């Protein structure tokens, strides 16, 4: 799916429903529904657009509806696009009810917000699960006849400036009638393994979506593209080794996601960052986030391998580089690998 220009999202209407936490053995109440959409100023339309764009820009996965999903959301979204639903009210209430019913004790309460609009000539629907935030505000006033600022606690803020990434799914009406509905979904980064119930609640259970691209395939594609870039576009050799080790370390870490732009900023020189992203994009690897599954690259992450023109092969555990193994470039363009370690065994290659 070509990435749409989210700055062009035009917002027509928005509606908010309050979805409390669901306590199995307590009377926690039911959702509080709106029966009409909220009034929106131009300032609010722009604000929502910016927040949605930022969240999806940082952390969106391409998704499609799961044909086997029990969630009613795919049907409700379809009804808004095909005109079956006259407006956003009933479908969004049904979504809020479904959110409440499918939550367990670990899911926090929230505000289910549905935003209808258009993007690049196609109908668009954004579904947000937002949490109330606390803050304080100051109002000029008087106390004991003297000027002061009244400080007031606020408990019903929503989507503040500091919130960069939140739960949002943006679905686009297909350009052609028989095409499937495409979407982008972002969620707060949790660092859990992908199969966690909490991590996948919003995407799978609530929205009824699946990732369009299998994580193990995308991880393999990412690894191959990154390695190709390091080998073909990076000099000198010690820089190659540094980048390769960083790639292996991040892919082998416990984080459920790999963020290419963040990786580039943390590990690559400035001059290599954009070319690295361009190299990934050329292989259709997203530049913002990849859901990790290292099944297909596991064996490549255990050791660092250096092949030389003479046929010499050096295989190094990542942790040994900089310790027992040093890599440096010589003036004549050759690479010097220095190994200082106790020799354990030597023999013919098997």
């Amino acid at each position, binding site marked *: 799916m070509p990435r749409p220009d989210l*700055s062009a999202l035009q917002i027509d209407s928005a509606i908010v429903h309050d979805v409390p936490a669901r306590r199995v053995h307590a009377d926690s109440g039911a959702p509080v529904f709106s029966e009409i959409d909220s009034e929106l100023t131009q300032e609010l339309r*722009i604000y929502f657009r910016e927040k949605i*764009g930022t969240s999806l820009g940082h952390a969106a996965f391409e998704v499609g509806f799961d044909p086997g999903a029990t969630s009613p959301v795919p049907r409700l979204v379809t009804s808004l696009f095909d005109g079956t639903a006259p407006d956003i009210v009933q479908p969004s209430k049904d979504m809020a009810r479904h959110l409440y019913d499918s939550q367990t004790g670990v899911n926090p309460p929230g505000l289910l917000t549905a935003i209808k609009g258009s993007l690049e000539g196609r109908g668009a629907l954004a579904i947000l699960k937002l949490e109330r935030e606390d803050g304080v505000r100051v109002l000029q006033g008087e106390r004991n006849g003297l000027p002061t600022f009244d400080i007031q606690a606020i408990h019903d803020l929503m989507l503040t400036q500091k919130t960069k990434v939140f739960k949002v799914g943006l679905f686009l009406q297909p350009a052609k009638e028989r095409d499937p509905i495409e979407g982008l979904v972002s969620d707060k980064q949790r660092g859990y393994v992908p199969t966690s119930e909490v991590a996948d609640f919003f995407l799978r259970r609530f929205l009824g979506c699946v990732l369009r691209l299998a994580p193990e395939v995308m991880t393999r594609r990412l690894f191959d593209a990154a390695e190709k870039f390091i080998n073909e576009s990076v000099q000198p050799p010690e820089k190659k080794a540094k980048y390769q080790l960083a790639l292996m370390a991040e892919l082998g870490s416990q984080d459920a996601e790999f963020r290419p732009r963040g990786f580039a*900023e943390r590990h690559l020189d*400035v*001059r290599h960052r954009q070319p690295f*992203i361009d190299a990934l994009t050329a292989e259709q690897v997203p530049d913002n986030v990849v859901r990790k599954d290292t099944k297909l690259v596991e064996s490549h992450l255990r050791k660092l391998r250096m092949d030389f023109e003479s046929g010499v092969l050096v295989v190094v555990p990542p942790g040994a580089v900089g310790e027992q193994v040093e890599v440096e470039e010589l003036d004549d363009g050759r690479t010097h690998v220095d190994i200082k370690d106790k020799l354990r065994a030597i023999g013919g290659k098997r």
Partner: protein
Amino acid sequence: MVSASELQALRESYAAERPVYEALAGHIAEVAGEAIRRAGIYCRTESRAKDVASLIKKAIRKGYAGLEEVPDRAGARVILAFADSVPAADDIVGRVFEVRWREDKSQGLSPDQFGYLGIHYGVSVRQEDRDARDRFGDRVCELQLHTTAQRAWADVSHELLYKPDASPERDVARVLYRLMALMEVFDESVVRARETLKVMPDWKEAAVLGGLEQLFLVMTAREFDRELSLTVLRALVPAYGDEDAHQIESRVREFVNLNGAKIERIFREYGDDLRHPMLFQPETLLVFERLEADPFTLKDQWQHVLPLELLEGTAEVWGVAL
């Protein structure tokens, strides 16, 4: 000698065709100007179709009986700021038009002679440009390529020297030749001054700002803070590496051409929004361009000079996550 009936026929046929020649002259000027500017060369253009009265007078003077005999029915000019841009502009003219004839006026001068130094062409639209070809056929437009000084001399000399059968008095001729020499010295000095200014601090940023200002004003017609622009540009210009001011401007201009609708929409929607104080500044066009091309270097350069939150705000407006 051309007859009265031939002049009448000429008048009628040219009056009918003149709108086409006017459009041709405008088209040639526009195509030449855009192609040359896209190469990072600043230029102005002018165009005109010969008016009917002038054409008839020329026909009487030269004895032209038919329209096809009159050579400069349509005329366009490309006026360059710097003389050292002429070779590149000459090359561009050869690529974007069918050149029917070319006359480099300097070639006819011996080393001890001074005179007009422009290049004149007879051009028509290329065969590959189907729409233009359908509209203008193979009609020829006279295109003149010269510098600002040469343009001034061309205008003045037309008045001073237009006595084909008489030479000026010796003293007057000497004055005129000194003026021509001065024109050449002017062009050379401008190029030399530019090279000197290039290495002076702030010049590159000021030159970039000059180009951005023009684009910005066309889109917004807003006042802006020049000092703030120079402060920001001091941080951003290094993000373009070794590119000079013209190259940077050319790159931003091309970006604005491609994304003009989106930029105009943003300026329109955020017109009264106080949350993004940096938005209505000319350098924002450059920020937008870098956000698409290389946000990493932009971010790296920016945070040496200004709070990152300001850049994040602009990125949010453009629809890019930093």
